[in-house]
């Protein structure tokens, strides 16, 4: 336990970090830069060359942004990306009627409450799958990337104008869904120092807002915050709290996964969907099977419908089905009789470390293979023959082709280690030592099997 204490450093205690977090400028500048890149990607996507590898939109979004998101932001900062994400920014500025601190006048939104029926991440699961089914074409064709980005931006603005707070991020954004899921692993958290102070605090400025900042845009009451999933690390509560009760601190990885409460079916499904689609992407994009690639690419054709059906069945039925079988076998072995559905949901959270490791391993493959497209795409964003930074002629060569497999092995090994440790901890919740042991075995074997499958797809 001593080691766990050592890994907790309260960042908000250091005045430099604290003032950087309190100031709105760093966030505003990073968001504006990201928004500029994003708008340029929309422009180049619509009007630039249709050749993906020469078009800024594809390279900026699917190589640069994706690499930063999956290799750095999500594993180390959880929802850190959400705090500077450009997609909800224009809508949020309109909604607030301000770019920086509250001006007391209020903004343009109708401020409706998000319907109760959709207060879950099923819509995000659906939105993710919808994009995933078209992803081969979105990943490779600038026009389609532009369509997707334009749609994200318009839906985000519309949502901000109709509903209160960041309803788009919390309930619709397909990216936000998996960032939230994996943010539970991050070695950083924002929490209250003392929940008792919150409970007795009448005005609850963190939720309602005051002149120093806005009420939690993510519809979270910081006093009740136990998991990173829905906290966008926007730092509003740090600004609004009148009792100096908010802290940001480092912590050991994956802490949220071992909290017994608050596990839900929609999030469990997110874990299945993410692991399943990582496997599909590895097979389609990185495998040697040409017919699979063209089936995924020829949208509307018969092979595409077959691909869609296979994708959905695999991700929504095969992966959860096999996993449930593993959970149920364990339950039998352990002689346990508790709610089967509940235990499948609980154990699904153990797939989160392996799922993120799979996505990182997958991303390593194509990010480094295509990173050398970045300089020419910056030099000639539209592919019109410009040469802004003199790098238009840089040729393609894949980077680190010998070390990428080693990095993939390392990250998958860590992921499997993490997943199985979580299986053991979840299994021990409220049952005897022996029962927990038996319950863990089949689920751990499922994780080992999934890892071997991933290794086969990536390095065999």
């Amino acid at each position, binding site marked *: 336990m001593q080691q766990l204490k050592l890994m907790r450093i309260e960042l908000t205690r250091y005045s430099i970090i604290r003032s950087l977090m309190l100031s709105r400028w760093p966030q505003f500048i990073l968001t504006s830069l990201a928004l500029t890149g994003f708008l340029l990607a929309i422009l180049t996507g619509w009007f630039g060359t249709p*050749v993906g590898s020469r078009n800024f939109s594809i390279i900026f979004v699917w190589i640069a942004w994706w690499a930063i998101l999956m290799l750095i932001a999500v594993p180390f900062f959880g929802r850190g990306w959400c705090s500077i994400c450009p997609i909800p920014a224009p809508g949020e500025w309109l909604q607030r009627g301000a770019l920086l601190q509250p001006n007391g006048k209020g903004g343009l939104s109708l401020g409706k409450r998000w319907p109760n029926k959709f207060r879950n991440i099923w819509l995000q699961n659906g939105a993710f799958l919808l994009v995933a089914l078209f992803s081969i074409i979105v990943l*490779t*064709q600038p026009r389609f990337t532009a369509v997707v980005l334009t749609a994200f931006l318009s839906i985000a603005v519309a949502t901000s104008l109709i509903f209160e707070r960041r309803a788009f991020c919390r309930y619709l954004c397909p990216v936000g869904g998996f960032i939230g899921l994996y943010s539970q692993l991050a070695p950083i958290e924002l929490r209250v120092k003392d929940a008792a102070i919150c409970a007795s605090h009448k005005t609850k400025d963190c939720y309602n807002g005051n002149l120093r900042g806005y009420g939690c845009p993510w519809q979270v009451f910081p006093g009740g915050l136990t998991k990173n999933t829905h906290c966008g690390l926007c730092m509003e509560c740090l600004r609004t709290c009148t009792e100096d009760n908010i802290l940001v601190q480092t912590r050991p990885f994956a802490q949220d996964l071992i909290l017994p409460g608050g596990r839900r079916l929609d999030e469990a499904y997110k874990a299945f969907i993410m692991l399943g689609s990582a496997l599909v992407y590895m097979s389609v994009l990185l495998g*040697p099977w040409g017919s699979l*690639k063209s089936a995924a690419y020829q949208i509307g054709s018969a092979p595409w419908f077959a691909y869609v059906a296979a994708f959905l069945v695999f991700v929504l039925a095969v992966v959860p089905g096999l996993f449930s079988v593993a959970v149920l076998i364990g339950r039998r072995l352990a002689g346990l009789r508790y709610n089967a559905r509940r235990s499948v949901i609980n154990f699904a959270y153990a797939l989160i470390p392996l799922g993120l490791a799979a996505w990182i391993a997958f991303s390593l493959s194509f990010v480094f293979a295509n990173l050398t497209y970045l300089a020419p795409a910056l030099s000639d964003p539209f592919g019109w023959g410009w040469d802004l930074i003199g790098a238009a002629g840089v040729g393609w060569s894949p980077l680190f082709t010998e070390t990428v497999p080693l990095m993939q092995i390392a990250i998958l090994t860590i992921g499997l280690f993490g997943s199985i440790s979580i*299986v053991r901890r979840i299994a021990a919740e409220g049952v005897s030592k022996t029962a927990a042991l038996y319950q863990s075995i089949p689920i751990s074997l499922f*994780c080992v099997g999934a890892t071997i499958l991933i*290794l086969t797809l990536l390095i065999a």
Partner: protein
Amino acid sequence: MYSTQIPVKIVRSWPWIAIIASILVIAFTPLPLKASQPVARTVRVEARSFEFSPSVIHVEQGQQVTIELIATDVVHGIYVDGYGHEIIANPGQTATLTFIADKSGSFRLRCSVTCGALHPFMIGKLNVGVNLLFYRAIGLSVLAGLAGFMLFRPRNEQ
């Protein structure tokens, strides 16, 4: 009583010593493979958007390999991961690449000329000899799984 404490500690830690030792063995043992084969090997590879056929090539370690690349529709190329060799073939023409396959393992073959939308994912495989890395990886991950399994000791004795 306390005289048994030291043996208990050793007994408790031996699985860990075993796991760590096996990790080191699996990760670093150099395995001398059988001597190189003198027979040269020529493989004809057809490239069309967006696949190579055959898409997977098997050769022996140490073998002299010649790849004859034929592009059937537009210009395609082959870049051999790990080896760094590259050839480009114009439509209808054959380009050849000869090299000694001295590194064992599985190496991706990537199309090296932008040939259309799916170009970045036009991928084949060159398997040379035994893919030791793959087996090491499986060994390591199983051990990591085992370590994750053993690391946790439930506290509640019921």
